[in-house]
């Protein structure tokens, strides 16, 4: 009798304790994270023909596959899409394996992206850095692993030729200065009160587009920058910023210079909303050259675009091959750029991205 009671009590105790522990569940967080690391493996036949000729130059781990990594800071607009597509298509054309990571405008994520890429037995790495300073540990990590690095479209606070091979980028200073020169030649006004909408502060592009433009403005006595604000590279943000500037200045300006044409499109919207006529009352100068903006030149709402070619692929892989062949590489390589205005807009629309 006693024993049965004991057994019953014990079993109840067991059950109760289990019931309690049963409530706590494992937090099975998915370690995969949200990072998009896409691997594009070419058709086997294509790579085989390339690899069959001779052993692949610069193949670090000797696995017969030349794997190129690309850490992109973001794919947040047409320019980036064009850049990634260009890199990818050239890599495919040349028979390299191409691995890409998207940092989604997050400096910390870009560091871990580079780590992830390096873990995939890379033979070469392209980085489009989000932040000049923050990217340095990633560059050092690649150097430690012996993976050569070429930076795309932005510089970094490390030593070119030592920590990394070189930077391929548009001549941002040229872009800024050319905008000022174009204004001087085609502005058709005696004096220019200029509003500058910059990109997100922190990149060498913002720094140089501002510096180049200010250098150009300094050359002409009739030009004055009355306001400089960041539009964060974004159309909607630029639109808001522009609205504020219009209100604070009472519309007392006749030029808006934007660090990219996406922001210029936002500015156009804001100006129209305020009853000002972009393209005539207010000249709109921009950089980049995406199709929508070129269309806006045709529509007469943007006046001038200094191109910033996103199609890095040919130059990037050419430079990489030069490096692998042991040729001398310039520390800074500039893409070829040009000016689009109403005179050549329809012609250049086909090249726009």
């Amino acid at each position, binding site marked *: 009798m006693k024993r049965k009671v004991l057994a019953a009590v014990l079993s109840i105790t067991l059950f109760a304790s289990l019931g309690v522990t049963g409530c706590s569940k*494992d937090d099975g967080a998915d370690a995969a994270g949200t990072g998009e690391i896409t691997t594009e493996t070419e058709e086997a036949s294509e790579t085989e023909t390339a690899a069959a000729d001779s052993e692949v130059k610069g193949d670090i781990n000797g696995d017969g596959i030349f794997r190129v990594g690309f850490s992109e800071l973001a794919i947040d607009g047409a320019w980036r899409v064009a850049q990634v597509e260009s890199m990818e298509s050239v890599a495919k054309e040349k028979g390299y394996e191409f691995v890409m990571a998207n940092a989604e405008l997050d400096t910390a994520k870009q560091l871990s992206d580079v780590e992830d890429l390096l873990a995939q037995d890379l033979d070469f790495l392209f980085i489009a850095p989000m932040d000049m300073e923050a990217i340095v540990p990633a560059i050092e990590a690649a150097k430690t692993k012996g993976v050569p690095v070429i930076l795309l479209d932005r510089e970094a606070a490390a030593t070119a030729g030592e920590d990394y091979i070189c930077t391929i980028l548009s001549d941002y200073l040229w872009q800024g200065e050319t905008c000022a020169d174009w204004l001087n030649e085609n502005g058709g006004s005696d004096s220019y009160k200029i509003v500058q909408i910059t990109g997100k502060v922190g990149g060498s592009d913002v720094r140089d587009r501002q510096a180049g433009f200010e250098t150009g403005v300094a050359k002409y006595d009739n030009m004055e920058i009355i306001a400089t604000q960041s539009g964060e590279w974004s159309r909607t943000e630029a639109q808001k910023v522009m609205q504020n500037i219009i209100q604070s200045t009472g519309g007392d300006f006749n030029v808006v210079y934007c660090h990219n044409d*996406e922001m210029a499109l936002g500015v156009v919207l804001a100006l129209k909303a305020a009853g000002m006529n972009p393209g005539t009352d207010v000249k709109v100068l921009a950089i980049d050259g995406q199709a929508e903006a070129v269309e806006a030149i045709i529509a007469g709402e943007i006046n001038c675009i200094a191109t910033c070619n996103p199609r890095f692929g040919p130059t990037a892989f050419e430079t990489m091959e030069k490096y692998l062949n042991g040729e001398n590489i310039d520390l800074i390589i500039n893409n070829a750029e040009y000016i689009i205005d109403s005179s050549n807009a329809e012609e250049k629309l086909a090249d726009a991205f």
Partner: protein
Amino acid sequence: MGKVSIEKRLRELFIATAVVAMAMSITISTIFYINNIIKTAKDNINATMDYNGAEINKIIAEGIEFLSILENDITIQQAIRENDFENEKGIYAQRISLNSYLRILANNYSEDMDGTYLLLDDGRSFKSSVYPFRNDDFQNKKWYQGIISQENIRYDFGYEGTRVISNIVYPCFSIGRQIRNYKTGEVVGIIIIEYKMEILKKIIEKNSSTINLDFSVCDEITDRDWDVLHNKFIEKDNTRREKLGIITLRQSLENGWIITAKSSWFQMIKRELLITGMIIFIGIIIITTASVIFAIRFSKAITAPLHEVLLHMENIDQDNLKKTIAINTKFIEMEKLVSGLNEMTSQINDLFEKGRMVEQDMRKAHFMALQAQINPHFLYNTLDHIAWQIRVNMYDEALASIIALAKFFRLALNMGEELITLEKELEHTNYYLQIQTARFKDEISYQMNMEMEQNKLKELVVPKFILQPLVENSIYHGIRDVGETGKITVSVREVDQYTYILIHDDGAGIPKEKLKSLNESLMKGEINNRDTDKGYGILNVNQRIKYLFGMDYGLVIESIEGKFTTVKVLLPLANIDSQIVQKHKIHK
């Protein structure tokens, strides 16, 4: 079947009972527990699924609402109608402003949408996205024709890459609907909202962080499911059979898609099972140990008194029947057993006592009867003989006879004592022989040979009347039955540790068969022998000697028929204390 001890059997039974009870309770509680876990898991999954389903439904509902906002929007309706442009400038200007307008609308409405597009049959296209359009004609696409050809909202589930814009490939789904020119009522194009499939993952991660679940979404048309957590397409699992250890639950979304949640309850409760196993293991050890200890104690509690009782019973004999046993036990039955045993032994003791008394009484009665039997007969004969002596004027002889008779009776009375010294017994016998030889003067002679020290004869105490009956037998059955003269010799001697008394007569002797039977009876100490009629006295004497001195002593008869008979009386040299005690006992 072999016999086993109660203690062992009890122990085994108790342990077995405990183990069975334990096994049953563990099994039942485990089954109950696992069932409960599965049920809880199902409830949890259902709740999570309800929540996720609601969230996805909400996104879809928002999309539908946004579509209706767009198709009723004045700016958009105006843009649809304003399609007569002189040159491209107008087209581009319209596109720039409407793109920005769409973007602002979309951004303000919801962050979940990847892009909103207005695509018109006349080739105009407007987008909210920052990404450029694809360089192909959307009018020829199947999806476009599918949307424009039906009045209802059309959901396109899970395709790789966006349909309208050029972007890095990511999987999308879309909600689309035809749009009419409200003025003419004519269908002019479509509005379509694209979503990244990834937003499903975000919803589910937000709600399912505590449960290890595999969610997938599918519509019934496509042959692939969308694995939400891993953000990829998987082969559609059409076998809806529930696999062992996996819970699968399905729920329909409002737009007809199906959300599926799979969870391995085994994975979920793996850790709990491990803990359970350990607790059960510890429990088994504790319960087993407790059972064994309890079983041993319990069985001992029952068997220990039993053992005491057994020991008590083994020690019981005639001498300690009065001893009772006292046992400390809490079992009523045991108490009854012990008190019963005590009662029984005391009753047996009483019976023994009673028996002993009866036996003593019987023996006394025998003795008295014997005395009573002998005496009147002997007295009559002797007195008759004395009368004859007087009648024939043999006064001296008569006087001697009377004196001898008187002394004979004085010894026979002997103060009522049953025991008597051997000296007096011999004296008594001598008087008897004297009387008898006086009576049968011509027929009998006798001789007594005292070969032992007088002291020893004085000290040895023997039962009264052990020699007189033997001598009487020799006279009547040995000599007088033959009808010739005979001689009786009584010898007393010391041989080894025995006192030997031999009563020898040269009379008729005893037939061989009878002698053998008689000697056997004597050896066994029997009182009755059917084969002998004159043996009563002999067996009685023998039995009394054995009773006093033990089975080593008693009578042995040697005889050859027609020649002689010798009765050997074996007695000890001296009495031991108990015989003196016995003497007093008998006296009492």
